[in-house]
């Protein structure tokens, strides 16, 4: 035993590896993998032609366009605004900074159904924000703009927190050094700071995108849920389920799962220790 301890770096000095791993795999298998496997198994029971018919119907294609299109726009907005907010929070001290910092986490804290009815109430044509917009001819609720607004809301904390955590560890001397060497401030930002933040921004973007694509609760109340126009894929899945069309729902879910897997892959490649921010 003493010898085993002395061999530092030796694998698994602590006993109980086999039962620990076996129990962990069993738990992960039952809780996470079994349901995912059921989706893949159901999908494999559908023939190729049928799958194409179900996953590539014009209504399905339009739902992807609305979902992925809105999520891309929202994630892009979140990334730009998130960078500005992270910069402000980390680099400056000003009155109200603590409130701003706390407010960023509101989308994490507000349950999605609550966020959904709040956004719908706020942005309908008689709402606090919807009425002034409608006066200018902009209708937010029941249009794709409403979907984007809801996705911006749920994705913002991811964009802020991923960038802020990298920015706060960035040695300040870097931009000072650049400025001492004669670089002007905007130049310093573009050529020194921004490249260092780019990976974190991309992670934040991917997380906001993943969240936007999968979002349901915050969107159903503000989106019109009109087929081909304001119907997101998650809502189409629910519609298929209500028609007891399990295969149709599964085909759509497979497309969304594939998108999730690609995004997880990107996030894991970019960030060695993935830390999903939360609450």
């Amino acid at each position, binding site marked *: 035993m003493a010898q085993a301890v002395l061999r530092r770096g030796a*694998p*698994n*000095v*602590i006993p*109980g590896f086999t039962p*620990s*791993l076996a*129990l*962990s795999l069993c738990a*992960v298998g039952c*809780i*996470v993998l079994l*349901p995912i496997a*059921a*989706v893949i*198994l*159901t999908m494999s029971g559908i023939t190729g032609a049928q799958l194409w018919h179900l996953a590539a119907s014009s209504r399905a294609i339009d739902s992807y366009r609305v979902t992925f299109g809105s999520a891309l726009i929202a994630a892009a907005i979140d990334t730009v605004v998130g960078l500005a*907010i992270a910069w*402000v929070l*980390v680099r*400056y*001290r000003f009155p109200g900074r603590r409130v701003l910092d706390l*407010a*960023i986490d*509101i989308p994490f804290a*507000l*349950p*999605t*159904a*609550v966020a959904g*009815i*709040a956004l719908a*109430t*706020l942005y309908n044509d008689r709402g*606090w924000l919807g009425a002034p917009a409608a006066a200018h001819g902009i209708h937010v609720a029941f249009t794709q703009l409403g979907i984007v*607004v809801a996705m911006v809301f749920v994705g913002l904390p991811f964009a802020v927190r991923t960038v802020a955590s990298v920015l*706060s560890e*960035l*040695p*300040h001397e870097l931009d000072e050094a650049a400025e001492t060497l004669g670089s002007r401030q905007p130049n310093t930002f573009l050529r020194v700071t921004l490249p260092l933040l780019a990976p974190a921004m991309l992670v934040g973007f991917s997380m906001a995108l993943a969240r936007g*694509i*999968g*979002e*349901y*609760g915050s969107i159903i109340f503000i989106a019109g849920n009109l087929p081909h126009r304001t119907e997101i894929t998650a809502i189409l*899945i*629910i519609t298929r*389920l209500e028609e007891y069309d*399990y295969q149709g*729902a*599964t085909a759509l*879910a497979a497309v*969304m*799962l594939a998108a*999730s897997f690609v*995004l*997880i892959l990107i996030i894991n490649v970019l960030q060695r220790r993935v830390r*999903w921010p*939360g*609450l």
Partner: protein
Amino acid sequence: MAGSVVRKPSVAATVLIGACAAFVATFVLMPFVVVFAQAFGGGIAAMRTLFVQGEAMHAMGLTAIITIAALAVNASVGLLIAWTLSKYRFHGKALLSAIVDLPLSVSPVVAGLAILLAFGSRSPLGIWFAAHGVKLVFALPALVMATVFVTFPFIAREVAAVMDEQGRQLEEAALTLGARLPSVFWRVTLPNVRFALLNGMILCGARAMGEFGAVSVVSGKIRGQTETIPLYIEALYNEYNVSGAFAMALVLVIATVAAIALRIALARRYAHQ
């Protein structure tokens, strides 16, 4: 330490701060404020009539049961997985860790569908349980399973991060001194991660209370039976009982704000760790 180097805001910076504050106030703070305005908009009397109704009480009770069940499952499984991930070396550790994080990027609706397909009346498991008189889907078991799936990563990753930082020396020392493995876990490992465990449980609980998409798919929305608080909010809102919906929403918001306050208080208390 970069965090301590702080600039005095210049004019341009003041404009930037103002713009950020305006954006957050409009798009993030307003939806939060509107919950309170609408909840009290119907008057206190309207709120009271809502809460004395059996349906509201039932929804709150059901959400409490599901949340406690999800906490119990995810706390025990989370500790186990964190232990395995941080105290041993093995191939495929990164894969296991990625699978633990998987539910974070799966749409709640897809998660609900997955539970439905795995345990529903057409699946082998669902058929077997039905033959033994147990209804899984459109009943409490599936509500719990959907919630466990969605909140699965929170406790495991909070605890794993801290266990990882603390390394294996303490456990190895205890073992050298003759302690047996279970007592090493209970008396050495667990006390050192209790802050992370509590923290993860708060995150998990807050998320479990408000889970909507996944629960919505597997509940069947049987009124007064499988209706959690978020599902009841949806039902009220769709019946044009807006102030009722926001009054129920307020219950959830107060619970989540309490969770955040608890988290901040914990962080202060355990600041030295």
